[in-house]
């Protein structure tokens, strides 16, 4: 053998089944453990989501596990003020002390101000705990994320999501959709296969030449915030030229005539004036899309086009376009999700009805987004105002889980609101800005230290469950969020209202309907397949008002909203002064929101976020590549470095999301660039109501900034 490898051969190598929790795709992998240390994560070819690959973030997962900066034990803040990034003079405490303290603070708030004064902010895992203590305030992150998609798809198709069947598509039309640039594993592979192997035509509308746009046959640099106008005009063309699928519409679509009437006024010429897209182009693409070939418009989440006033209508209009061309539940079009169900354990005793129905986020005013006290996606962005004004009642304790300050729109307002609270409990992996503001920090275990069963709800093309085991023993004195909630409930004496099953018994219970135990599932390779054959579902028994695809919604009309997709020119913004720009946001392929910035391999590739700007326009303003600029919007101010490119509209800048960490305890991520949330609006509920968006206008990613060189 002439080859002498530059690597020491490990003696003891083991592989274990895992499920990636970096993003919601939950790709399955095998973890390679050398001499007790996890060294490599490898995708499983049997996994239909990852198809054996893992993205940069997934590959770097072990960085999070072995990150020396991780939270290692519970800690209490010993200085009174809450300033992000400032030394909280942490004191190490035991779990017992921590839970006692947290429960005491919660008890104090409940006794004096009622259970509604305790709120949960962040990932949607607080429901059972809130129900147990009787608070309606489950403030999920979803209204900054996927709420628009969930409710628009729910109204139209009766499900929370649809799956773009890229591989079999012949026409892929994207509005600001850039999952290739974000490195979304399963979506990227499908899209590339559709384009390269199935010769699908790809058309991308985006103010910036995104990675997806760079792979498209056609990139159309549309004016930011006007995609909806273009889709409505395309509906106009398809209907007025009778290019829709008459048979499909007659059988499966409800409200077509009303839609046809509504879109008459949205002519290509009208849309062209608004969007800068030539009317000919709109007509041509509408004709191509409706030529009869399998065609799809993908929608994801937290995209600037969708998370804004009118975003709800945009998703509905896109669904309408696929519906009238017969591309719903058709190969190469939009498929209903195929999710494998899991058993969810119930509590021993049914918790009493929640007395206070009114939510602190004003969610009850948006019955679509918040159908029940604890249900729904909430209105994250109206919370800071309500806390500051103590409306409708004072909030005293917040449990913050999986939410970073970098994801809180109008960050300064949020900081003020958080400073007003009596007590903040933060369940976190990292000592980030949020942790430095909390009175009590409870360290969460990393996903590589815990067991998982994931039904993979996002992009569910096939019902397939992934099962994973802990890769190694817990490195530090950390706990899983479910256990933390249970301990808190127990200390408060309400644990009978929480599901009692824990550990392996819970894992086995969740899989019981498949006649398999957790251990057996692991022995079988950690992947449980449902039916792989594509059998089209019946489109006359959907969970919509008519059972069919619902274009005209009487439910929305009853709630006082527009029953059809519509356009309001009041939603449009226009930069006027020489230094004013539209803003769009995007995410890099190597980072997931604000969660991965201290992972060393990812940090090395992208240590700092930046602002994309058109180089010709920048030259006019005397801005050079790499210059620091100050961005000022009506909502805040932030500094960042510019990266000059030609692939963006001269009137638009693009900020990468998730950066702007200040905490000195994250040695790599500290001072990593501009925080886009700082300059984004967090509207009070009155503004949300005025915007006439049934999801509460969600987070508004559409705004104007002034750019000044500093």
């Amino acid at each position, binding site marked *: 053998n002439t*080859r002498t490898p530059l*690597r020491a051969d490990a003696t003891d190598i083991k592989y274990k089944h895992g499920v990636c929790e970096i993003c919601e795709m939950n790709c399955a992998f095998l973890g390679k453990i050398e001499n007790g240390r996890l060294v490599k994560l*490898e995708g499983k070819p049997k996994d239909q989501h990852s198809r054996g690959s893992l993205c940069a973030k997934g590959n770097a997962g072990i960085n999070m596990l072995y990150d020396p900066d991780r939270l290692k034990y519970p800690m209490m803040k010993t200085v009174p003020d809450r300033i992000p990034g400032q030394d909280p003079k942490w004191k190490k405490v035991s779990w017992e002390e921590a839970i006692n303290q947290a429960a005491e603070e919660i008890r104090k708030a409940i006794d004096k101000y009622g259970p509604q004064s305790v709120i949960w902010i962040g990932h949607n895992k607080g429901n059972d705990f809130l129900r147990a203590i009787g608070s309606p305030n489950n403030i999920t992150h979803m209204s900054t994320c996927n709420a628009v998609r969930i409710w628009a798809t729910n109204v139209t198709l009766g499900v929370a999501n649809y799956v773009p069947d890229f591989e079999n598509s012949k026409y892929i039309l994207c509005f600001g959709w850039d999952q290739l640039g974000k490195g979304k594993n399963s979506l990227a592979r499908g899209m*590339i296969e559709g384009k*390269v192997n199935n010769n699908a035509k790809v058309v991308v509308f985006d103010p910036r030449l995104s990675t997806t746009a760079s792979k498209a046959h056609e990139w159309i640099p549309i004016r930011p915030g006007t995609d909806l106008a273009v889709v409505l005009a395309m509906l106009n063309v398809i209907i007025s030229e009778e290019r829709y699928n008459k048979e499909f519409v007659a059988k499966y679509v409800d409200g077509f005539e009303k839609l046809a009437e509504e879109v008459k006024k949205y002519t290509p010429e009208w849309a062209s004036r608004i969007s800068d897209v030539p009317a000919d182009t709109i007509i041509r693409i509408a004709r191509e899309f409706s030529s009869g070939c399998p065609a799809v418009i993908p929608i994801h989440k937290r995209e600037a086009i969708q998370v804004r006033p009118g975003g709800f209508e945009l998703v509905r209009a896109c669904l309408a376009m696929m519906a009238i061309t017969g591309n719903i539940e058709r190969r190469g079009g939009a498929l209903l999700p195929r999710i494998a169900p899991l058993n969810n354990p119930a509590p021993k005793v049914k918790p009493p009805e929640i007395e206070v129905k009114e939510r602190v986020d004003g969610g009850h005013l948006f019955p679509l987004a918040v159908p029940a006290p604890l249900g729904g996606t909430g209105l994250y962005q109206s919370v800071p105002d309500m806390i500051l004004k103590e409306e409708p009642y004072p909030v005293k304790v917040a449990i913050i889980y999986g939410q970073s300050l970098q994801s809180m729109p109008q960050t300064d307002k949020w900081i003020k609101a958080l400073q007003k609270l009596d007590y903040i409990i933060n369940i976190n992996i990292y000592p980030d800005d949020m942790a430095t503001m909390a009175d009590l920090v409870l360290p969460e275990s990393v996903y590589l230290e815990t067991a998982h069963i994931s039904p993979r709800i996002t992009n569910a093309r096939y019902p397939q469950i992934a099962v994973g085991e802990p890769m190694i023993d817990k490195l530090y004195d950390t706990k899983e969020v479910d256990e933390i909630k249970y301990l808190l409930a127990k200390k408060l004496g309400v644990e009978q209202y929480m599901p009692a099953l824990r550990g392996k018994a819970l894992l086995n219970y969740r899989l019981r309907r498949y006649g398999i135990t957790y251990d057996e599932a692991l022995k079988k390779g950690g992947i449980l397949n449902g039916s792989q054959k594509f059998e089209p579902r019946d489109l006359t028994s959907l969970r919509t008002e008519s059972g069919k695809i619902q274009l005209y919604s009487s439910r929305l009309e009853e709630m006082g909203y527009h029953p059809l997709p519509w356009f309001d020119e009041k939603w449009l913004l226009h930069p006027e002064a020489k230094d004013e720009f539209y803003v769009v946001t995007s995410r890099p392929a190597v980072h997931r929101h604000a969660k991965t910035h201290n992972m060393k*391999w990812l940090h090395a590739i992208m240590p700092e976020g930046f602002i994309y700007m058109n180089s010709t326009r920048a030259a006019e303003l005397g801005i050079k590549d790499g210059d620091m600029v100050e961005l000022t919007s009506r909502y805040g101010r932030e500094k960042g470095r510019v990266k000059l490119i030609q*692939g963006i509209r001269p009137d638009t800048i693009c900020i990468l999301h998730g950066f702007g960490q200040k905490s000195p305890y994250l040695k790599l991520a500290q001072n990593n660039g501009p925080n886009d949330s700082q300059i984004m609006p967090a509207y009070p509920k009155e503004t949300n109501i005025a915007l006439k968006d049934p999801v509460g206008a969600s987070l508004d990613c559409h705004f104007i900034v002034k750019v000044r060189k500093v």
Partner: protein
Amino acid sequence: MAKKRWGKIVDLNKCVGCHACSVACIAENKVEEGKYRTKIIEHEEGVFPNVYKYTEKWSCNHCQHAPCVDACPTKASHYTEWGTVEVKPELCIGCGYCVLACPYRVRIMNERKHGGLPEKCTLCVHLLEKGKKPACETSCIAGAIITGDLNDPHSEINQWMAKGAVERRPDLMTHPNVFIIPYRR
């Protein structure tokens, strides 16, 4: 059986520049922090609105006429019997001539391992020998990479060759075993 000639093709029409290959390579080959055996290079050309951009996975091309092998004073850099270029650490004196000689600038000097020796992509031959795929190919989220035996006319890599794979910088006359399918607008 005919001798193997390992090669690789990267399809730039598929590459999305997500860096999965870079990170997978670091994990598999325990590459030093901040250094890359394979990395992503971004290209943007044109003037708005007629702009195009593409990304390119950039790593050792395993040249059949390799300037790094020519430059090595101790024959540590050598051709293997399966067509790749590798370094024998026991012969290497760490002079760094190969790093300078490589026209593709893909060799890196590590500081930790063996007291400062050059390293680079090995095509993950240690995995290929076991019938596995290199770390970069396994991880590629776009399916843009294929590795295989160029001497086997039935191999998948030779089907990709027929799709218009070309050498990088043929003017350098290095005759690489790693090819690209160029980005088509």
